[in-house]
């Protein structure tokens, strides 16, 4: 079975925020939560880069390691999901994540303390696939529909790649060969314990 991975090619991201918008729209993400965002480093200085970032669905996910109530789990395809039924909103995952992926809803729909929210790789959650309950809690389950994440699909420069990790790696490898330098696979090594 394919191991799903994201790759953001920082050499290609133009900070258009289409990925952010597409994600919010596709999943009807509540106000105050962006499951995906574009981070600009060295803003206005030499070496400025923009990086589209969300949950990277890490191989050894640090969110899972700190969660005191075991609400995270990994699917057979390597997608890291969490159960909003079990989450107690402690926010420990927010601090532990090197990508700042888990989000805390500013207007909680789940009681005063809220439940964390995060990118699902468009794979829904622990509810029945493509059910209204799954959509309400986690957003659309595009993987169950046979599709890949909407953010990567909408990326105009194909800076953001999503899919079978081997295929994603091959595409990036071809780019490196074509352009002659290897930088850009931001966070790949951190997430998947592979040199980027």
């Amino acid at each position, binding site marked *: 079975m394919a191991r799903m991975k994201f790759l953001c090619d920082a050499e290609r991201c133009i900070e258009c925020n289409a990925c952010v918008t597409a994600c919010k729209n596709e999943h009807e993400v509540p106000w105050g939560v962006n499951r995906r965002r574009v981070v600009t480093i060295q803003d206005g200085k030499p070496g400025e880069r923009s990086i589209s970032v969300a949950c990277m669905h890490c191989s050894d996910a640090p969110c899972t390691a700190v969660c005191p*109530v075991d609400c995270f789990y990994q699917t057979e395809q390597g997608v890291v999901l969490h*159960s909003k*039924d079990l989450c*107690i909103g402690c926010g420990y995952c927010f601090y532990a994540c*090197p990508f700042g992926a888990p989000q*805390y809803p500013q207007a909680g729909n789940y009681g005063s303390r809220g439940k964390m929210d995060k990118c699902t790789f468009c794979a829904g959650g622990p509810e029945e696939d493509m059910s209204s309950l799954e959509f309400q809690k986690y957003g659309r389950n595009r993987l169950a529909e046979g599709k890949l994440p909407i953010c990567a699909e909408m990326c105009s420069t194909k800076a953001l790649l999503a899919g079978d990790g081997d295929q994603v790696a091959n595409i990036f490898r071809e780019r490196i060969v074509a352009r002659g330098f290897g930088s850009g696979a931001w966070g790949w090594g951190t997430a998947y314990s592979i040199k980027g």
Partner: protein
Amino acid sequence: MSSCYSIFKTASSSLGWLFLCLSLIGLVPISASAFDRYTAHGGPVRDLALSPDGKHFVTASFDYSAVLWSADEIAEKSTLIGHEAALNTAQFSPDGKLLATGGDDGLVLVWKAEQLPDESAEPIILRGHRGKIVHLAFSADNSMLASASWDGSIGIWPLDAGPEKAEAGVRFITGHEGPVNAVQFSDDSQFLYSAGYDGQIRYWRLANDEYLRSVVKNGWGVSVFVVDEVRDIVAFGSSDGVMSVSRMSDQTELLRVGDERVPVLSIFYHAGEGFLGFGNAKGRVLLTDTKDWSIIRDFHAANGPIWSLLVMPDAQSLMVAGLDDFITRWPIFEFPPEFLERPGPARRFHPKQEISNGERQFARKCSVCHTLKADGKRRAGPSLFGVFGRQAGGLEGYPYSKALQTSDIVWSAATINQLFEEGPDKVTPGTKMPIQRMKNAKDREDLVSFLQSATQK
């Protein structure tokens, strides 16, 4: 309730020396060594705050309580109960008269220091935030308290007329994109610095709450920071693993270290003693000398996040808090590098051994807040010892919510099953218990079955 372990203490006996020798040649793991542990809490410890006179410190915990400790003998003095959820932060006022705590309940509680040794101390409750409070700061002139919240705002609570009047005069500053993680007043109390998920340390004029500029634009979220206006430095730790110190006036970087993309979660600064320390999400503690920014200590103090760190008043030891119930004191200068190993036993909510599904459900989903024993160990929730047949809200000594105090539920296999099938918000509305549901009927059945045997009197 406090206990300590130290290989140096152990090593004073012949068995201890044997253990030490075996450790050094690798036959016995040398983790869990070279430090002292103190346990008062029944959940992760999120913050440490030292009183201005150095005589006491306070720990703020996931277990809904704060604990006052004497700093010299590290002895628990009193427990402060008042929050309705996990605590994230504690801070003494510069004059030492007040202690403020903030938590997941969105409340700021202000405690009068003279009442702290009294277990029945009643805090002043300040309401207004719509999200959890993660950091607090007093102004140097003791006239204001600032609160950083994940609702995206900064609360400014006036204290001139006393903390009782603070809620009436509160105002909220907004402008950060996303959660605010940390705050600090300027030395003259006219300005405020704040750091957030948006990667910026912003600078505000308090006369009109105007955003003036960003002292730091990091891109990745800034979790912790400290500003020393006299020395013209800003130090911060970020979610991408950067521990940075730079001059504010020209942004010259004086120190930049850290593990690539291991979030930095804690910072400690003491201008007088010349210490600046950072702690990260993988247990790394880095202590620097502020005179030349040389590294004094760089070691792994925990198997997990370092939520808070504090150089003790003796300037010889460092107190560290993390995902465990205990806090750990490490000597700063004395112990040899051979001992700088990553310590830490498996936590009760991280069971490693093969156990039944029911026990696993309890360990992973419930044990962080509940104990099964009758010994009254502190937890966020009440002990489940003898829970079957017990009236909800009926365990003497546990500070239940009003909702549970007036509940007519009697806990049984059926009602506990119902609690997790429908959720505490439906079965016991108004409870302090987080909303958790277990949708898998088999898991619920196994959990109830395990509890029936494990909680028997």
